[in-house]
């Protein structure tokens, strides 16, 4: 080699080459195709993943059966910021699943909406703050979602129109560790089909 800069070039190339060799190959994952389920589905057949014993999962869409909000008036109303129906979150006190007076009008409005649109579907997702057992918190979140559904069905929504699920403490809206964060996470969200 003739000069220093060429020596340095080889040096750089050598480091890059060796660095390339050092990268850990990522675990082979076979992507599993999107599977959105209709509510009420039972078990889904297992998808085969690569034999390396790992599987990749992509996100999937919100389950919601049938045609979403067939009433064209309905979908506008759900998104109208001047309409209470555009509000979707109900907040709860610690250890409580009681819908407070503050949120009754919101829940009742969604209940009446569903009662008036028999083909409309909604999911109520219950959440808890981060304290306590994960599995017990799934059950607590479920209780919150169920309480909201009960109010809705009292106003005429049909059982088949509303699915209640729980995220427990797994999907906090606020990742903080203080009471302000916890208060935001003790929450149930109403999600209409197709959203």
């Amino acid at each position, binding site marked *: *080699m003739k000069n220093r800069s060429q*020596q340095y070039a*080889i*040096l750089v190339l*050598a*480091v890059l080459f*060796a*660095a390339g*060799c*050092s*990268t*850990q190959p990522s*675990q082979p*994952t*076979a992507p599993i195709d999107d599977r959105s*389920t209709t*509510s*009420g*589905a*039972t*078990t*889904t*057949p*297992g*998808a*085969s*993943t690569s*034999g*390396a*014993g*790992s*599987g*990749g*999962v*992509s*996100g*999937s*869409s*919100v*389950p919601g059966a049938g045609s979403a909000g067939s009433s064209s008036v309905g979908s506008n109303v759900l998104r109208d910021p001047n309409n209470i129906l555009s509000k979707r979150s109900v907040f709860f006190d610690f250890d409580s699943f009681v819908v407070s007076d503050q949120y009754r009008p919101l829940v009742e409005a969604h209940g009446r909406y569903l009662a008036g649109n028999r083909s409309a579907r909604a999911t109520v*997702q219950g959440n808890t703050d981060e*304290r*306590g*057992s*994960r*599995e*017990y918190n*799934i*059950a607590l979140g*479920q*209780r919150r979602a*169920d309480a909201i559904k009960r109010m809705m069905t009292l106003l005429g929504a049909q059982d088949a129109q509303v*699915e*209640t*699920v*729980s*995220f427990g403490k*797994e*999907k906090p809206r606020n990742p903080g*560790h203080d009471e302000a964060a916890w208060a935001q996470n003790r929450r149930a969200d109403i999600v209409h089909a197709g959203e």
Partner: protein
Amino acid sequence: MRSLLRLFVAVFAVALLASSPARAQLTIEIVGGAGTTIPVSIVPFEGEAALPLSITQIVGADLTRSGLFKLIDPGSMRPSRAEDVRVADWRARSADAVAVGSMRPVGDGRIEVRFALVDAVKSTTLANQIYTIAPTQLRATAHKIADVVYEKLTGDAGVFSTRIAYITKQGPRFALQVADADGFEPQTIVQSNEPLLSPRWSPDGNQIAYVSFEQKKPVVYVQSLLTGQRRAVANFRGSNSAPAWSPDGRRLAVTLSRDGGSQLYLMNADGSDVRRITQSAAIDTEAYFMPDGQSLLFTSDRGGTPQIYRLTLGSGAVERLTFDGSYNVTPRPLPDGRGMVFVRREGGRFQLATMDFASRQVQILTQGPIDESPSIAPNGKLVIYANEQGGRGVLAAVSTDGSVRQRLVSPATDVREPAWGPLPRT
């Protein structure tokens, strides 16, 4: 030209050193050891230096990590067979036992490993084993040898050949991983942009049940560790969670909200033949089979606050087990069926506790403040669990008598939901 070549080689060598893969993503440190430890010396095996992996280094690390042993330096002594061990030399070094061995290639690329354990106090040979292995089995053989040493010197089965499952979270990405009990060789079993929780080993160690939110609601999956195939075994309307295997591996208890509330159901491991087994207007969840398969422990707030109950499957009888405090959850029976580990909340702190069923006596095992998800090692001696340090989830372990404490460190990720796998079936 020659100096350039030297430079090239030097750079390449340094880069290769830097590139040797970080073998363990989870490293396990002792933070508190047992009061009395057994002094044992592990003599480097004859022929070991020629191999890529040091068996005796792994054996020593296993025994040290258990908190029950103190490694004695063999100095320059190198016996390789039981008959070469002069016990007086070892007693002089305060070693109660000496492990010796040798390794040699035996055609077909295989390796013969000979190992002996000598009791230096009684001057007896406690173990004498020969293994013929493929080079890929070096690590597993080291763990097997550590198990033999552990069992011969403590009387309990070793768990160095077991695996642990756990959930990691890195940014928005969740993964269920399985690693050796020492944290080495982690493998990703499934990953997702939605939460994963409650990994549960089948009794034969070949399958893992878990809860996934990938369908935007909790669904229970069972996945084979051998083939990677999986199926959703509980995907009913509402939430499906808290899977628990029966000891014969044929059935799963699960918590379903399909009929309203959260109630316990039993099903075959493939999801068929679903039967409801609790009938309350309360929350019933966190089922866990007792080792004899005749009853299960579960969490219920039917009495007003979350407490632990036992359901006898034949009769349907339910008995309350916890009465102290207003929050007792996550029951985990000990393998001998004589008691359980569970989580209690006291004054805002979540901590692990044990209960002896005969006396109903409760003993606090950890301090908290946020201890959760205990899983008991199959020899009943260690409990792995989750807590938090520096704002992120970490794993820790404590011996069931509270004397040994370990911290499991993962470099970057948030780790939670550990599950200790079964003893390997030989």
